[in-house]
């Protein structure tokens, strides 16, 4: 069935069946493969995207449920050839090794920053616990998010 999704400010016409998850719609139909499929069962956070500015797991929601929503993926984060401050902080703090979880980490952290909490390291660790990093880059991920939170505080 032809269907339109608003992703990163652009309308994408896609051909979906009801069982297409938002994750599969992004990767397989809209060609946006920055969002990663890790566990596909809501346990790893690699597929995190923003829906209307809030972080969600794209593997546990159907694409058809989001026809009226604004979806933001990692491809929509940088602007005008410049990295988003959070992306820059991940680079500066060496907050990834293999990189597979990184787009999910960044989208989750963007959602977290928008939630408006005071982000001390303990709060960051707790609130980011839905994003698993198999390389174990956690200390540097916490540092990167903390640095951006401090600057925007």
């Amino acid at each position, binding site marked *: 069935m032809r269907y339109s999704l608003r992703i990163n400010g652009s309308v994408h016409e896609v051909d979906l*069946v*009801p*069982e297409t*998850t938002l994750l599969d719609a992004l990767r397989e139909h809209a060609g946006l493969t920055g969002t990663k499929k890790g566990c*596909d*069962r*809501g346990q790893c*956070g690699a597929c*995190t995207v923003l829906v209307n500015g*809030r*972080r*969600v*797991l794209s*593997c*546990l*929601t*159907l694409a*058809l*449920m989001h026809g009226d929503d604004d979806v933001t993926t990692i491809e929509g984060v940088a602007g005008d050839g410049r990295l988003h401050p959070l992306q820059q902080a991940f680079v500066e703090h060496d907050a990834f090794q293999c990189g597979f979880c990184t787009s999910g980490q960044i989208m*989750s952290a963007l*959602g*977290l920053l928008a*939630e408006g909490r005071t982000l001390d390291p303990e709060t960051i*660790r*707790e*609130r*980011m*616990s*839905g*994003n698993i990093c198999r390389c174990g880059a956690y200390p540097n991920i916490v540092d990167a998010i903390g640095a951006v939170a401090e600057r925007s505080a």
Partner: protein
Amino acid sequence: MQPFTYQRVDSLARARAALLEDPRAQMIAGGTTLLDLMKAGVERPAAVIDINALPLAAIDVTPQHVRIGALARNSDVADDPTIVREFPVLVQALAAGASGQLRNMATVGGNLLQRTRCTYFRDNVSRCNKREPGSGCDARAGVSRGHAVLGTSESCIATHASDMAVALAALDATVIVMRADGEVRLTLDQFYRLPEERPERETVLERGDVIVAVELAPAPLYRRSHYLKLRDRASYEFALVSAGASLEIGHDGTITRSRLALGGVGTVPWRAQDAERVLDGGQAGPELFRRAADAAFTGAVTTPYNAFKVELAKRAIVRVLETLAASAS
């Protein structure tokens, strides 16, 4: 996932009609349990009815009541200023559940209806009376470290996984259900069914019923409330045991009213009324708290794998009650 039809409904009447039309139809709200289990093949709806367009997401506050719409997201409930002030146990339980992403998706109604984490239920291979009525229970003789010790039966020892529902039980919450003849109001004890011989029937909901709200009534008792969750890792994990309690303590240290509910140990969110009876009228302190904790588990039935939960839960109860007794009223 096996194919299904998808329909977005814009009224409660249409939702109810769609559910009654097709016995294999299921509602989807946050989707975090349903889609997970559909991928596992455990849930196989022929029709998915999307109820997210229904006007059931508001949290309405009046002086007497806080009415939380069934589609309110867990994160919105946990951030609501009235709920933060009046019902700390609920905020703490929600914050201890799942992850930031899942809390943005999961709804209050869906949380009440989330299915067990029993691996024998979820693997779609083992014998499971909940998944395939009458097939048997592989959990009883299996690895049952996560399983229940209260409210179990020969048919089922699966634990109810919700933190939120445990807090709601400690707050005397009312579940409001829309049925053909109007709204039905149920306490959590009335809402959930013990497994007995029919573990596939987890609640008293009938075909076509829709949870529309959860209602709470602010009171000093609930303002002094607390949730403690113990688990294998510090975050993003289901409870081994949890305890939620509300306490009202007089100036002389006598407990005038109490509510105690337990998670991780029961086949349903477990209201420990035996323990409350010990607490009420007693002098707040470690001796009374330990006696109350003992009373909560007099009926416990354990397996070699989960027997440790009894002592762990008793200590959790004592710690929650000590925390509340030490807090300013």
